């Protein structure tokens, strides 16, 4: 779908709209032929044809929800589009892209996922705030700036991470080389010189693909559901005395975060 310079805007009608493809960088068109799609509430901007948008929890859709959602608490943020026609998806002028999974798995930040085919199963990731899609099918995701695919090993700024596919879950990595030595000690004690803001990364190793967005501006997080409060469930808070990290105060930019704690500041 290229725009020809000088030819004016491209005018679409129901027959020229692309099928399951981008209309432009910010809009995606999905064709429904009696099939169904899940979309996040409020991401549909226009549609042709006859479609129904039903909130999840509708009796008729119970079976669908049962097979595609494994997190009942979170299902209320989604609607099911069914019928025939073409609909346009967009999200606040962020870049939109579709991704095909073939018997694969992909974990994505909850706020970035716009829509997915019911052939995919949506599950909560062990990493809080992330969702995992498993199976075969297409999903649509938004990102701030175009998405860049990288191969591990790589270390990623937490705010630039969109998701990852096929590789093991990331671990935290701390860079604080400049905090050692005499000058580093002075810096840590006095706070002079500030922090580089890059002490904390997510580290990916192994085979797979890491998805990055081109900016550190995050998209609004969607509730990804809560996990049962059980011992052994990360984020569940079940096991007492389970170390710091979860549920602390939000980290401010420029603050050293866990490093600060490590140095006793």
């Amino acid at each position, binding site marked *: 779908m290229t725009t020809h310079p000088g030819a004016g805007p491209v005018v679409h009608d129901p027959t020229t709209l692309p099928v399951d493809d981008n209309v432009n960088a910010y809009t995606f068109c999905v064709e429904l032929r009696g099939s169904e799609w899940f979309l996040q509430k409020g991401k549909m901007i226009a549609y042709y044809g006859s479609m129904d948008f039903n909130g999840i929890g509708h009796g008729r859709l119970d079976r669908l929800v049962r097979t595609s959602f494994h997190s009942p608490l979170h299902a209320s943020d989604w609607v099911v589009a069914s019928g025939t026609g073409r609909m346009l998806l967009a999200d606040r002028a962020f870049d939109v892209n579709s991704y095909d999974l073939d018997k694969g798995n992909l974990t994505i930040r909850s706020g970035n996922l716009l829509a997915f085919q019911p052939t995919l199963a949506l599950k909560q990731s062990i990493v809080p705030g992330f969702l995992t899609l498993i199976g075969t099918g297409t999903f649509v995701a938004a990102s701030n700036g*175009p998405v*860049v695919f990288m191969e591990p090993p790589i270390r990623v700024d937490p705010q630039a991470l969109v998701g990852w596919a096929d590789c093991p879950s990331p671990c935290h990595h701390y860079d604080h080389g400049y905090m050692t030595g005499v000058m580093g000690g002075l810096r840590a004690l006095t706070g002079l*010189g500030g922090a*580089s803001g890059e002490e904390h990364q997510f580290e990916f190793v192994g085979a797979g693909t890491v998805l990055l967005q081109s900016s550190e501006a995050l998209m609004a997080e969607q509730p990804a559901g809560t996990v049962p409060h059980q011992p052994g469930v990360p984020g569940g808070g079940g096991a007492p005395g389970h170390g710091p990290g979860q549920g602390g105060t939000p980290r401010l930019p420029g603050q050293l975060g866990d490093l600060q704690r490590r140095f006793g500041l």
Partner: protein
Amino acid sequence: MPFREVNSKMIEATVLPGARLFSQRGAMLAYKGEVSFTPNMQGGQGGLMSMIGRRVADEATPLMTVEGSGTVLFGHGGHHIQVINLTGDTLYVEADRLLAFDGTLEQGTMFMGSQGGVMGMVRGQVTGQGLFTTTLKGHGAVAVMAHGGVVEIPITPQRPVHVDPQAYVAHHGDVRNKLSAALGLRDLVGRGSGEAFQLELSGHGAVYVQASEEKL
């Protein structure tokens, strides 16, 4: 050529041992290899005096030194990025627009009044540059941020370029700039065209203009 444009909002920098880069703090998106990011107390190059100079001039943007060996991806705030390769001439740019630049470039600050006296200072106020601006000189690459896409407009002695001060990003080369005011009676009664001030650049070089009138 240490910077490669990945897309319009992201660049990839290659860091080699012995060479260093400066970048805005917190602008790293991801990296491969062994790379260290050290906050830079001086806000750039030079010794204590340059640091004080920058502090006074309010051009002391928090920078960090990037060293090691590997590749680093930079991007910030969803802004568009323009890579400018300097070959011995001087780039004039606001410090907060700098995303990353080669450590080989010589960094300095310039008093706006030194180009055109009082009118230079007025020009600084109108373009949002303030009284001082940052200069980068030498051979190397600079990544500059802008709101919206960036257009490079060449300046030749025969063809001076007029730029909306709010859309001005940076310029390099042997360029004289002056503020041309087209204030008239209409502006006084609030019926102006909204384009009363323009930056006129003449000489030899290039000016970078963003496709938006929004400041960073």
